[in-house]
């Protein structure tokens, strides 16, 4: 975007299969955006600019999952161009909602959505970026938290470890002083097994967490399943709860598959 900035760190933003929401987080940082572009060169960001400069880039931000043969090749090229590669959002870090296909017959899906299936080329699996190339940091969330993104970019440029917590949503609830909706009202809530970062949003809006930040560091998913069962959820419902926007994250995947077996 800014060509007179030879000494500024260069950032590239790359999109794979996704909704554009996580890269939009950067444009949604309205208060910080002009400051950010003063400090770095946004060298490649097609959603925001028609000036697309070639790599290499100091930081690559990758959104989206790998779902096509072309994208599986493209991510290799992107990796080569980026000194530090950061994946942003549930699609890039866990395969996202597109990973729901991983348990299904994709050919049948194509027939449901497209009239002429032979025009469509896609992979059977939606997979996270880290399955294809080494990733330096994974920023979770569906969508990511823009403040975490800015903190992460700042830390990376300063060469220090980012302060992104991996504890559960429960801690955020406690800190906000929320009354536990699972305990007090019997609402099924994935908060205990889900990584913090959203600010315990759903419980603060009187609904159970649906796990959009993916599994926390050490999730006890079998205990979570038992709790859901105690609250009257059928195994099929518990399986569906784990099978959301981070369904292919291994801890959630294992939990949903166990529910399906029993």
């Amino acid at each position: 975007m800014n060509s007179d900035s030879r000494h500024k760190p260069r950032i590239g933003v790359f999109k794979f299969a996704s909704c554009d929401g996580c890269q939009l987080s950067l444009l949604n940082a309205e208060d910080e955006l002009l400051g950010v572009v003063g400090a770095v060169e946004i060298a490649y960001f097609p959603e925001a600019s028609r000036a697309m400069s070639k790599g290499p880039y100091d930081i690559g931000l990758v959104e989206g999952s790998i779902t096509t043969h072309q994208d599986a090749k493209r991510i290799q090229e992107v990796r080569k161009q980026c000194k530090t590669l950061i994946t942003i959002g549930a699609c890039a870090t866990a395969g996202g909602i597109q990973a729901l296909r991983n348990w299904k017959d994709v050919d049948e899906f194509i027939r449901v959505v497209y009239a002429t299936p032979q025009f469509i080329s896609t992979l059977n699996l939606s997979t996270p970026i880290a399955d294809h190339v080494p990733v330096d940091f994974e920023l979770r969330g569906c969508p990511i938290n823009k403040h975490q993104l800015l903190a992460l970019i700042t830390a990376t440029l300063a060469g220090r470890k980012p302060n992104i917590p991996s504890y559960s949503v429960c801690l955020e609830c406690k800190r906000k002083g929320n009354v536990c909706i699972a305990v007090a009202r019997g609402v099924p809530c994935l908060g205990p097994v889900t990584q913090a970062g959203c600010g315990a949003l759903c419980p603060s809006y009187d609904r159970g967490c649906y796990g959009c930040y993916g599994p926390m560091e050490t999730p006890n998913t079998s205990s979570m399943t038992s709790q859901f069962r105690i609250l009257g959820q059928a195994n099929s419902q518990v399986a569906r709860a784990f099978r959301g926007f981070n369904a292919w994250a291994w801890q959630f995947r294992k939990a949903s598959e166990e529910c399906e077996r029993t």
Partner: protein
Amino acid sequence: MTGRATKTIRVNTLARVEGEGSLYIKLVGERVADVKLKIYEPPRFFEAFLRGRHFSEAPDITARICGICPIAYQMSAVHAIERALGIQIPPAVRLLRRLFYCGEWIESHTLHVYMLHAPDFLGYADAIAMAKDHRAVVEKALRLKKIGNRVVQLLGGREIHPISAAVGGFYKVPTEQQLRDLVGDLEWALEASLETVRWTASLEFPNFEQDYEFVALRHEGEYPFNEGRLVSNRGLDIDTAEYEDHFLELHVKHSNALHSVVRGRGSYLVGPLARFNLNFDKLPETVQRVAIDVGLRPPVKNIFRSIVVRAVELVFACAEALRAIREYEPPASPRVEVHNRIGVGQAITEAPRGILYHRYALDENGKILAAKIVPPTSQNQKRIEDDLREYAPRLVAAPIEEATWKCEQAIRSYDPCISCATHFLKLSVDREENTD
């Protein structure tokens, strides 16, 4: 020399649109041999993912179709499902949903007007480069966008993929005080929107008028968001449930998005231009005057002027948000009770980019048996190609870089959202020099 110069305009990655697409135009002399708006955004199987899920999950799942207009998806989903379940929502919830949509229109229209489209008119690659010469303009845009996002955040919990919209209402509704706290910002936003109208109207527009079929919702009492009949300037006037009887989705080889046509007629246009032209009389008189003062009267047939219409809709959205806040009284309960029931329901709502159709079939356990979603950009896709077919021949004499940029500008007039349309875009113009 009998040379028929063949010219190719090609844009491999169309910028400042949401999602991935490309353009290919082949000109032989002044004749357009081929126009392909390609959507290479990977296929995304939302309709298939929805099958077997409970209807209560549909607003959360469909929001993920688009990070730019998740509220549109949530609104079409909840209204279609409520229709399937035979639920009536209380007036306070109805008002809050209009306010919620105002927030999304403000945020999305501001993003498009200032950050995605205006740089084309002023010759910048992006809003950041534009900010170097027009810093106050970009700062105003960012503040305006933030105010739209503030409305969304209050009602929905967060800007992207909000969490509060539910079948039957909201998980949690705001207090009157929380809404009153928005008033100061929205009053500033209203003034900034009025400036936006005057600013956009001062831009230069190519002289390019087309005979469009405009399609939009029309409601007897108000400028449309969530309700109304579906109408066009060519006699269409149907209940939204009859949408599939009148519109057809075609699957074309060069695109991962489906092309929509009006049965028996062809391409049509949805979005701000269609809404404005078909609903001008439903805009508050003050907003009508704002449009007329800058020379904007229906029918506006120049797609490049959609940036001014979007600005007029910004004024409307700010004024409507202030009205909603004045009239709000919290509902007795944030949402009405819902029960599983067999049924089929359809709904159309006005996403910032145009009409968004959803249909759901539900079983006795509330499970979704089938879902159909038709996003605005796939409806506009054929119309964009038709526009380029008319517009490209005028660019024959122009240098390739200029011709390409003009075509991109034409496409961006539609504010295409490609991520949405795949269930959409790459630009490439073919110019072969042929001197035989």
